[in-house]
């Protein structure tokens, strides 16, 4: 099976060059295509920092981050941006939708920015929205409920058919019913699209849906259960 993401002995420091602190130690993690992985940890444990390292937004002090066989450290900023645009979809805790755009336009936006023509982007966005259970596209983004916003965000993350989807606390602030709805959509992605899914969460209910679960504490990653596959 092809690996969507491989982290080998990754260490991340924060602070200045003279005065820094290591917050991630020797992280080894593989996310295969079609697999879902959850990282659990308390607030401040370094979950978001780990995701930032996976996106190549922060340099790693040690080790390598490989996305579809490409070492991110060896990429120029332009190549890194292109990799992110083409191969990574991201779901944020608050959706991060642009309120100026409609849900359909929000979803179509990454495709348009990736060079896809408007008509194709629209139809692809409509299909992605339908896949997450949203078909009424007329309401302004502002009026969407929290669950709807997250599903639009999920559709947006998938519109470019990425190899890897990263989700940072995707159910934070949602009630249990809405959470279940969003989680169902999120964890259906790997099976449906054969992409890898890496979710950072502190919610056990979310983590329980993942193929593998890791606990991040003291900067170290420890497996919590055995793969369900």
């Amino acid at each position: 099976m092809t690996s969507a993401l491989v982290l080998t002995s990754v260490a991340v420091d924060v602070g200045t060059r003279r005065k820094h602190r290591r917050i991630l130690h020797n992280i080894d993690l593989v996310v295969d295509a079609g697999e879902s992985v959850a990282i659990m940890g308390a607030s401040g444990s370094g979950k978001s920092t780990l995701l930032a390292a996976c996106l190549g937004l922060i340099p790693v002090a040690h080790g390598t981050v490989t996305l579809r066989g490409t070492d991110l450290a060896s990429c120029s900023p332009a190549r890194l941006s292109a990799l992110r645009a083409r191969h990574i979809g991201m779901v944020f805790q608050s959706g991060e939708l642009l309120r100026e755009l409609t849900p359909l336009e929000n979803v179509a936006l990454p495709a348009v920015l990736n060079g896809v023509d408007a008509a194709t982007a629209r139809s692809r966005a409509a299909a992605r929205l339908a896949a997450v259970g949203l078909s009424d596209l007329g309401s302004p983004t502002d009026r969407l409920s929290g669950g709807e916003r997250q599903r639009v965000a999920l559709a947006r993350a998938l519109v470019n058919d990425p190899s890897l989807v990263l989700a940072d606390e995707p159910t934070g602030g949602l009630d249990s019913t809405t959470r279940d709805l969003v989680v169902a959509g999120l964890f259906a992605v790997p099976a449906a699209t054969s992409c890898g899914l890496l979710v950072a969460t502190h919610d056990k209910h979310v983590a329980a849906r993942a193929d593998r679960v890791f606990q991040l504490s003291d900067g170290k990653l420890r497996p919590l259960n055995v793969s369900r596959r």
Partner: protein
Amino acid sequence: MKGASAAVTLGLRSRRNSTGALFATLVEGAALIAAAVAAILLAGTHLAYEHRADRDAARLPTGSEEFFAAMEPALDGSPDQRQLLEARARLSAGAPFVLQARFARLSDGLQHSVVLVVRQQDGVAPPPGLPRWPLPGEAFLSSQLLTDGAAEGIATRYGKLAGTIAPEGLTSANERLAYVNPLPGSVPAGQMVPYQAFGGPSRHWWDDPVRVFGDSIGLTPAPYVLVLFLLLAVLPAGGLCLAAGRVTAPARNRRLVTLRTLGASPWQERFVQFGELLPALVVTTVASAGLVSCLVTTDITLPITGYISSAEALRARWIWLVVAALLGLTGGALLVVGRRARAAADSTRPESRDWKWPLWSAFLTPLGLVAAGRLPDLVDPSRRTTWYVSYLACTLLVLLGTPMLLSWIVKGTAAILETWSAPRLSPSLLITCRALLRNPAAVASPAAVIVLSAVIAFQGQFVTNTLGDRARQALAVSTALEGRVAVAMYFDGVRGAQEAIRRTPKGVHVLLVSESDPPEVMGTCEALASVGLTCPPSGQPQIAHLIGGDLQFLPLSIPIDQGTVEVLQGDPAAAAPRFTQQWLVFHSRTAINTEALQEAVVPTTWPNDGPDSPGYSYAGAGFAAAHESTWISLTALFALALLAIAIGCGTYSATLGLGKVLAPIGVLTARPGPFVVAAAALAALPTALGGVVAGLLGLRLTQIPVDAGIALPYGGTLLAGFVGVCIVAAAIQCLAAAFVVRTAAWSWRP
């Protein structure tokens, strides 16, 4: 105060450690320095500029009770010139000194006052600023006049240079003034006015300072300048402080709320706020001290107006400048903090308000403009009051409708562009248009403020440029003559006139015009024909009417009944003296080189005025008013700069928020370009739209009174400066927004 130092330190530290600390300090610093500069300028103008009224009064000649009693018949409203001259001549013999003030021009058009003074009794104090009375044939000149007229020998034009006039005899350092004691017999006795002394009660002023010393020539009245500074410097500075308080409020309100929750007393809260303001206060205090030091040590020439701020005048009152700076800083700081406290209370206010103006409101401004444009056809400009009221009503309509029109322009344009861009999924246009449709007030409000400020400034300039009837007539005639005519007056000076004719450059015809009833116009057939008069047979005068032709200006200078003159053929150079007061009229088929003519003829006209454009003395007041409008230009540009900073701060703050929203999608899609464009467009739109609309409205509204002939042609300094400020401000806002959004994308982390 208990815990005061701890609270100040807390404020200082919280500011230092907060995000956007540099921006907040810059915004507050800009507001505080604007407040301090405005206060210093206001005080400095009052101290140095207003003080000149005292100097003006101290040098104004005062007459005797006897003189006023003798002049009473002339003051009754029907002055008899002969009676006046006789009384003057009779009283002059026993007066301590006699004086006459005149205006003259340098070859480049700069006017100056020439005060002829002749001491007749010992023990009379000389004019202020002079160490002694000038001897016959001597002159004291101001330094500015010596400098300006150096190239054309001003130092010797009025006689032997006895020295310069000291500052206490001048109202300002850039006044052009000469005290001259003419040679005996060069000025007719009846022309000089007898006086008792310089300075004294105003009831003994025979003439006002304006007419004696030419105050209106290049020197603007102090109250006018002070009001301008108050309206266009102090108020906008206060506005900037309020805007700064609003911009920096959200970030610090949280701390204030936390402090209140923890039980901090109101005084402790204020000390924390003081600590937050401390960096800006320190920087602006140092800058203010530097400005005050400059003002009291160096003569500073203000741009545009050319006014010289006298260091000497300010040095004696430096403490008031310091007080003004402190008041400005304190007032500015209170406005910044006051706004913040109010903003905390208004934190629940919705972010945007949708302007739901009725559709007809979009037509108010065009209606006002159309009505104003039709005014010259509907109202006779000579019915001045009616014209002003009608014009003011139209202008008010234009101004009232401006915010609504702008809102509709923003909404309409955004709707059209959105319709176009939506099917194409053009991200930058879509985001910009939707943001505008969502909250048009974000662009329309600051743009409306720019338009209203600019149009009011333009209107101020129009009011200042308004001419009196005589000046308007003179200007119209002067314009119609296209420089083909110049005139010079001679008192008892036929010999001088004959000398002038001999010195007249080739190609220029000369006519001799006497102030008789009817006036006589004498010239060769060629000269008479050149101004459109039929040449009569020699020795046979003919009556002619001045209808059209190049002598139509004469009624401006000489009382002419129904435009009738007596035309004589003859050589003016050989004419025998028959009248006390005569005019030489210089005429050419093309524009006369006034400078060359003045240079050639001035020695013969002295001590009278040199040859000049006809009616210039009337138009002169209008030109002086045009000079006054430079103060409007200066203060308006200052106000507009403050306005631009205030709007810039607001948009920068809004862009920070937008940048944070756009950062994630920009980073993940690797294409931040469209978002940068959208943010830059939204940031620059208020200033750009405001600038364009204000420029168009201002130009149109000021052109109407110019077309109607009741204001001088628009100089354009203010408009050019305003457009320049708007372009620069919009460009800066554009770049700043682009920088903010790019930085937000670079620094974004999940």
